[in-house]
């Protein structure tokens, strides 16, 4: 695919307003909350309302993306939703999103799953369709109401949120210079069919899984494009916690200043498929025209998709059309563990 032929025409984010502090979760399981929060680099995480799920989050993010893009929903001819918490096992999230946006019926829709990176896989699919002129605009959404078993390490970070991206050729707020994927069969995290909560291989999720693929994806893209760390103003890596992306930055000798603006995990936790895409949205919310961003997602199982972006002159004006990530981070209401358990249907019998 020719570099820079398509880009992001609009983007939108959504984060539920409820929060639970890491210390509140730790208190229930007899753990040292401040130590866990410090170790993860995460203070609190977002919690969906009783009537929110991956579909409602995807719709809200998609509506914000449409506002930024300033296009008619009927012009979107492909919608992909990446998630590991689709409300239905059989029946697409994407068709409900398309109906709610008013993009039906001339649109192809599909749900994707690749742990936390299905949303970026959808962006690559849209890029192919747009670049080949099969469609004018395509939308990919990464959204989750992330599952974490009570008492498991995942419960401290598994949160809710999502971001939507509209890909097209004209009116771009950021041009996509190129993409590169790095994938192997690495069973670091999984959820079997019918299982309520995911399982993971503890420390195995680090070195041979997250770090190998994220670094492989980011370095592979820079090698492909002939760019170096110095060519980029911002970096975004998938954020299961704040520790992993910071360690990745150190490994690649990236100054932490280029990473910290996109570390939304500190405030909202790990929204799985929404994670790296919300980090990118945070950067697009503050970036100046002409700045370069390297974003690399990670999905357990395992793979990474890396993208090199350069922002355009249209970004500052168009992004004013919708709420930004910080607006959602600021609006928050804390809940107790008991209320959190109710919201997440963790109480038996609900």
């Amino acid at each position, binding site marked *: 695919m020719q570099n820079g032929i398509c880009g992001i025409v609009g983007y939108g984010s959504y984060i539920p307003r409820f929060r639970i502090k890491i210390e509140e979760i730790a208190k229930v399981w007899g753990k040292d909350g401040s130590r866990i929060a410090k170790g993860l680099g995460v203070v609190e995480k977002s919690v969906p309302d009783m*009537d929110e*799920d991956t579909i409602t989050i995807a719709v809200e993010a998609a509506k914000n993306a449409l506002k930024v893009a300033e296009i008619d929903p009927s012009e979107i001819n492909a919608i992909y939703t990446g998630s590991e918490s689709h409300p239905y096992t059989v029946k697409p999230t994407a068709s*409900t999103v398309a109906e*709610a946006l008013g993009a039906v019926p001339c649109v192809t829709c599909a749900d994707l799953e690749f742990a936390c990176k299905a949303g970026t896989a959808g962006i690559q699919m849209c890029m192919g369709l747009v670049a080949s002129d099969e469609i004018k605009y395509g939308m990919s959404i990464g959204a989750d109401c992330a599952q974490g078993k009570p008492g498991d390490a995942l419960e401290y970070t598994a949160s809710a949120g999502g971001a939507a991206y509209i890909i097209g050729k004209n009116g771009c707020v950021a041009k996509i210079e190129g993409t590169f994927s790095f994938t192997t069969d690495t069973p670091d995290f999984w959820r079997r069919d019918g299982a309520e909560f995911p399982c993971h291989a503890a420390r195995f999720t680090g070195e041979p899984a997250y770090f190998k693929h994220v670094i492989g994806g980011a370095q592979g893209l820079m090698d492909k494009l002939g760019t170096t760390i110095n060519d980029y103003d911002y970096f975004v890596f998938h954020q299961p916690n704040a520790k992993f992306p910071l360690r990745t930055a150190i490994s690649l000798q990236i100054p932490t200043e280029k990473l910290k603006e996109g570390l939304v995990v500190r405030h909202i936790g790990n929204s799985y498929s929404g994670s790296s895409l919300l980090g990118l949205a945070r950067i697009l919310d503050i970036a100046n025209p002409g700045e370069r961003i390297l974003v690399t997602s990670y999905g357990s199982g395992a793979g990474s998709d890396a993208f090199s972006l350069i922002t355009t002159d249209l970004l500052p004006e168009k992004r004013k059309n919708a709420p930004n990530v910080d*607006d959602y981070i600021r609006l928050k209401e804390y809940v107790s563990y008991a209320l959190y358990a109710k919201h997440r249907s963790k109480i038996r019998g*609900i």
Partner: protein
Amino acid sequence: MAHLESVPMFWRRMKSLYSLIGVECLNCGKKYFPPRLICPECGGKEMKDYRFKGTGKVVSYSIIDVPPKGLKYQTPYGLAIVELDEGVRVTGQLVGCNLGEIKAGMRVETTFRKIIAVNKNGVIQYGYKFRPEGYPRINNGEKK
């Protein structure tokens, strides 16, 4: 409550529930939600779809403690009569704010939420609810 489990009934109301689509009388211009086949105002039979903006103000509200089937775990919640900016009054649940922040006259906008899922194996019914206008750029129900 058998009607809540009727998939065809939900499907027929989908455009109204998802996108607040009503009708406008081509003869007198009067708008209706939910859609009507005949205009009660002028008797006109030619109606076209009209997508309401979804913004309006709370006319009256109630806090629901004893809900219909399927909403048990959402209580207590606010239910409001909202006058849309086009002049039509609709009923909807209020979310995105604390119950104490709800008041008559407050500006609201639609949001997309789960309305009801009667059982774990049934169809999930989505649709509009209302939240403070300008969400999430709000503070205690007031715009910043």
